[in-house]
């Protein structure tokens, strides 16, 4: 299997819109949110001020990166009410929409790592240095432990997610190197290396969405013909077997912390196996999925 183009069959069967719609909708969303921020300094239209670390919508509604606020609290600083409310709002939002929906629908780094994954497929790059998927939880623990020890928000020095926004809105400087490093790492070293293995913010949002009612489901998994297209596009392909292959105790529902709700599997499946589902009752226990590299 070399340079594969996973969506080919889906385009033939469902047409180009249905084979790409969630990808396009996500890009539209990611870019519009960025656009709303950029409109302030560039056009003087201040719908949102700030950046992804903390922002103020229409001068009223605060939104703060809960991980940043948590670090600040752990560093011993009593964050003022606005910041805490802002962090609460964001947590509530992602607890509802499936924690890592932040990753696929908002996070700007996702565009960089998706690009790397796409190039990897097109160029047929096969090198894949093995990393444990749970490394991100270790890093998350580190991100939370360092402020306790040093009383500095150390993660915010290198946080590439806020760096993109800060860079575009306030000047990036040498920050480009970090983003280039992530891109090259994903492209040449480990497939989905950053978002799929290391990013502590993704891990944090994953935990925040633990009880989210919005989930992907391989609802028509009996139609699956093992074409493996979804495996090629899914940023967390290790989670797919449990939903696709009937096994005791596992749903067709992708109840895992890792799923980013990107809907790419839904797009790319010519058999329409997948769908978004809203499940208010937690019918399937969340289980950490062992890496299937």
């Amino acid at each position, binding site marked *: 299997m070399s340079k594969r183009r996973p969506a080919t069959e889906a385009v033939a069967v469902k047409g180009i819109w249905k084979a790409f719609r969630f990808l396009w909708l996500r890009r539209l969303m990611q870019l519009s949110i960025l656009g709303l921020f950029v409109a302030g300094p560039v056009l003087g239209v201040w719908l949102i*001020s700030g950046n992804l*670390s903390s922002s103020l919508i229409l001068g009223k509604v605060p939104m703060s990166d809960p991980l940043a606020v948590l670090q600040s609290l752990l560093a011993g*600083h009593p964050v003022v009410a606005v910041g805490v409310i*802002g962090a609460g709002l964001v947590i509530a939002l992602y607890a509802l929409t499936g924690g890592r929906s932040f990753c696929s629908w908002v996070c700007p780094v996702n565009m960089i790592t998706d690009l790397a994954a796409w190039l990897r497929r097109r160029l047929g790059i096969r090198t894949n240095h093995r990393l444990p998927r*749970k490394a991100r939880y270790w890093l998350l623990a580190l991100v939370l432990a360092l402020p306790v020890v040093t009383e500095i928000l150390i993660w915010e020095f290198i946080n590439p997610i806020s760096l993109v926004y800060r860079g575009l809105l306030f000047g990036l400087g040498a920050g480009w190197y970090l983003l280039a490093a992530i891109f090259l790492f994903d492209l040449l070293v480990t497939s989905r290396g950053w978002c799929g293995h290391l990013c502590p913010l993704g891990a944090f949002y994953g935990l925040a969405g633990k009880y989210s009612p919005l989930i992907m489901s391989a609802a028509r998994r009996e139609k699956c013909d093992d074409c493996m297209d979804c495996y090629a596009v899914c940023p967390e392909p290790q989670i797919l077997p449990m939903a696709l292959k009937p096994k005791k105790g596992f749903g067709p529902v992708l109840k895992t912390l890792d799923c980013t709700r990107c809907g790419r599997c839904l797009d790319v499946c010519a058999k329409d196996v997948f769908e978004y589902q809203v499940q208010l009752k937690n019918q399937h226990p969340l289980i950490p999925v062992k890496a299937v590299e």
Partner: protein
Amino acid sequence: MSAGDKSNRDKGKTAGRNVSRRRFLTETAQAACAVGLLGLGLTFVAEKSRVHAAQVLRPPGALPEDDFLASCLRCGICVNDCPYNTLKLATPEDPVATGTPWFNAREIPCEMCDDIPCISHCPSGALSPELKDIDDARMGLAVLIDRENCLNLQGLRCDVCYRVCPLIDEAITLQRTRNTRTQVHAVFEPVVHSDACTGCGKCEQACVLDVAAIKVFPRELAQGELGKHYRFGWQEEERTGEKLVPWENKMPARMPGNSLNDGGDL
């Protein structure tokens, strides 16, 4: 199926479990080491940021530097709210913690807005909402650091730093002394008073020299501090009405410098 088969299979299972447990332990140990090293590296980087450069001034109301690094979320709302583009968020190569707001007085000083808009939406409290009067801001302290090039100290009448000071005659005064070069003129020395100077940087920006003779520094850099036990006798006397040291101290009067050796008397 004989009993032997079964026990063999069980043994195989236990062995498999042992292998996977060993792998789990190795992986955990590796991860712990990697994370520990990373943490150490990051701590070094971050600890360096505690020492910010002399030209870095924080916005009005900023908490003391250590608390500021523990609190600022690096959102840039203060930067957006400053009408004079004074503030900027640090990029990785700036001489201060990445992403935190700062300004360089020589480039764009703080105009000391009455309503202090930069503070009002700070979501973290890194810019303290307790600062209500901009005159109480302590962003830094102006220091007339180059006495050899300051025009006023040469006996010329520049006065620019004094005139632009928003707290003229409080934060900065002109002190008249004798011009020892011409013997007939006066020197008007700009003197900054730490109890009033806000560190806005207007004086540094306005200094007419190519490189300013008066500069605003973070207060930690600009100010000294008495030993905790140290008292000035005359201040104590004023406070308590009594001499701190009741007897008269007879100290030899001598010139500073090498006077001990060349026996130079006053």
